[in-house]
């Protein structure tokens, strides 16, 4: 052991000698947060697992990018988990008739370049994404027909159809209001290099795949921004991100794998925070054709064979909640009776297989991405073993995400595939749309006229109460028909330096001003 220490010391000395004077200087910089905590407490450093994708708020569908954007841009309204829709850029709004929404903007809101926000900016922003089909967020905004400017601070959003989820649409990815004059005068290229919004933090510098720096915007219309500077670092390797947290290089580490929780908890200065996320892991099953899963009994047996709680405990270290629905609490339409529950009953699963004529077992093909989601491969492997216990022999195929996405998009998977879905709209419509006849065709081929009627009526139903009932009823029927078998809602896990207060959001957004120094 002593010998090892000497060797280690020798290597350290060698390294120090190689790097000369710069080494010391650099080492100090590298651990700057340790030494400068007192002096520069106003700099917040966040370690993400990915860099942001772009500053084109309409041309990405990436939650971690949006988590950064929310500090630079503002939506018209904010979807608060406790209070519902609250004013952000819009001071008030009213749904005047089924396809018409009147909004009034706050006055005196400034963009980072000094321009004042007007209704023209809103028209420019929303009509761009509602009309350009090449933009990735087009699908969530094409329901908007026109934004009619009434005055500098008043405008009306017209939709083609009655649009009960309009407020959900304008409080998510793609709804940050952009500066019309700046973009029209300078062009998109300049905007993408030097983005301008109305948020509490303004753009300072972006070193792609390395670091994005934002600074406090002194003319922000809301409460004074708390931090003088915020740095979002892109650190893709999990163990490196955790090491940065442990050495004080970052204050907050996003996306912590369960294996590293103990490492963080055992350090004096760091702790782990977690909260439910919008991501639900589920099986998607063929309900028609020559597939064994076309038999409802086989689908039911699959659900009954899986002990979701065991997977959560053993693989996910308790950081997930079993669910039988994709519309989890916090989303409009959630059916809470189907949440935090499971139907594990292997005996009954065996009986069901016998009733379905598979007394000697049944073979199914199961496809799953590997390395895409938190412990995806391990979870699926455990489920395959559970299925085997009741007589379902799953031939499992693990695919790297880019290889998985093509057959997924082309709807080419056989009996069952495993996937996780999010819900950035916080509305039942987004979660259940894929089960409507048109979207389900070729994938689950799910066809239940009652569900179809409930979903299509709810899509344009402006009465909140009956819309809620429609979604809840639809989920109940879906949970019995099982075109999908929701498994569990995963939590987002963060590593936090003890010098800050941080509460994770269901939306996974990182509102910097909600993070405070202790």
């Amino acid at each position: 052991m002593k010998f090892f220490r000497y060797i280690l010391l020798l290597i350290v000395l060698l390294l120090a000698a190689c790097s000369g004077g710069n080494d010391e200087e650099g080492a100090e910089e590298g651990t700057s947060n340790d030494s400068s905590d007192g002096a520069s407490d106003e700099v917040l450093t966040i370690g993400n697992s990915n860099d942001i994708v772009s500053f084109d708020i309409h041309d990405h569908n990436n939650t971690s990018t949006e988590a950064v954007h929310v500090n630079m841009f503002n939506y018209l309204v904010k979807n608060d988990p406790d209070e519902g829709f609250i004013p952000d850029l819009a001071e008030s709004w009213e749904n005047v008739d089924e396809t018409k929404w009147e909004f009034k903007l706050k006055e005196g809101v400034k963009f980072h370049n000094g321009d004042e926000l007007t209704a023209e900016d809103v028209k420019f922003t929303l009509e761009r994404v509602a009309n350009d089909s090449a933009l990735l967020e087009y699908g969530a905004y094409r329901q908007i027909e026109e934004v009619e400017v009434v005055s500098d601070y008043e405008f009306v959003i017209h939709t083609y159809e009655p649009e009960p989820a309009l407020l959900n649409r304008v409080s998510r990815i793609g709804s940050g209001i952009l500066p019309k004059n700046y973009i029209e005068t300078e062009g998109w290229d300049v905007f993408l290099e030097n983005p301008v919004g109305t948020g509490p933090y303004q753009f300072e510098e972006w070193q792609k795949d390395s670091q994005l720096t934002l600074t406090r915007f002194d003319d922000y219309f809301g409460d004074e921004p708390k931090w003088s500077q915020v740095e979002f670092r892109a650190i893709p390797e999990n163990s490196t991100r955790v090491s940065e947290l442990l050495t004080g290089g970052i204050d907050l580490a996003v996306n912590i794998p369960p294996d590293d929780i103990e490492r963080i908890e055992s350090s004096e200065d760091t702790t782990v925070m977690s909260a439910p996320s919008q991501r639900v892991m589920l099986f998607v099953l063929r309900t028609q054709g020559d597939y064994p899963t076309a038999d409802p009994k086989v689908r039911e047996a699959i659900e009954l064979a899986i002990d979701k709680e065991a997977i959560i405990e053993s693989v996910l270290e308790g950081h997930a909640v079993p669910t039988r629905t994709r519309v989890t609490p916090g989303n409009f339409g959630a059916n809470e009776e189907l949440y935090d529950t499971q139907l594990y009953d292997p005996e009954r699963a065996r009986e069901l297989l016998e009733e379905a004529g598979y007394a000697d077992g049944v073979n199914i093909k199961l496809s799953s991405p590997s390395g895409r989601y938190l412990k995806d491969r391990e979870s699926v492997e455990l489920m395959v073993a559970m299925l085997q216990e009741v007589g379902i022999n799953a031939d499992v195929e693990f695919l790297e995400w880019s290889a998985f996405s093509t057959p997924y998009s082309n709807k080419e998977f056989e009996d069952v595939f495993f996937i996780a879905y999010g819900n950035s709209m916080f509305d039942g419509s987004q979660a259940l749309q894929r089960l409507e006849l048109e979207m389900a065709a070729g994938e689950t081929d799910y066809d239940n006229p009652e569900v179809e009627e409930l979903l299509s009526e709810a899509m344009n139903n402006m009465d909140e109460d009956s819309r809620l009932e429609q979604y809840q009823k639809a989920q109940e029927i879906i949970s019995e028909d099982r075109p999908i078998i929701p498994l569990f809602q995963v939590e987002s896990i963060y590593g936090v330096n003890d010098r800050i207060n941080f509460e994770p959001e269901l939306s996974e957004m990182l509102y910097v001003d909600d993070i405070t120094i202790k």
Partner: protein
Amino acid sequence: MKYFFLNVIKTVPVLILITLIVFILVRVTGDPVALMISENATEQEKAELREALGLNDNLIVQYINYMGSIIQGDFGESFRYNTDALTLVLDRLPASIELAIVSMILATIVSVPLGILSAIKRNSLLDLFITGISVVGKAMPNFWLGIMLILVFSVMLSLLPVSGSGTLAHTILPAVALGTGIAAEMTRLIRSSMLEILGQDFIRTARSKGLFEAVVVNVHAFRNALIPVVTIMALQTSTLIGGTLITETVFAWPGVGQLLIQAVNLRDMAVVQAAVFIIAIAVIVSNLLADLIYRLLDPRIKYD
């Protein structure tokens, strides 16, 4: 001069072949639209996006258009960043070159003395120790070594920054992680090359003239032993680039390697193509440089 001119011309078909292979590979292994578009997109929305990205054309038409653009220096636009792919790659290139050069320097500083020592103290305990370390150095996977270096030097000893770039201190750990395998390979090669040279007649002559052993080893033997070493250094360029792909990700080093890995994951075709093209050029240039250095080391080598 003529030799180098001819060699440069010979690289053109190689580059064309590389563009063709990469072009086909990125297209047959995944659909970028499937990776980009949201879960609830309709078939029509997918088709419109595919059209907007120019993916609906026949593959041959796409390739001809692509080659036409390359000749004008246009590698297309990145789907992910909406900017010129070549600029993206060239922006990252200095970081990767910096890492590669520092790794190479570290590998040389370590391997030359160890290789020579090992050869002149052949079969001694020291030789055994050095050879043993080389085997271990070669066998350690890059990413594992990187993570271990972070744990020891950053987390336990707080000597060096964990990740990122900007100062020499940030360069040390990734350069060591990347350079260790190369140093191990070079040590073994210098050792065997020196052993071969030390047994030759001209060394015996030098010794019989009464020259100091240091002069015999360092001037007469080492210079001759360098030729195969230069070859291996040139060949290591591709190993080095392969290593940067992983090392850059482990250390969040913003170079071409990290860019390429993300581009492959997202099927960002233009970036993959531009990055592979630039890497191919880097490998070709390093091989040409090796040819040049042979001449400096051994004036008898002539290229006709």
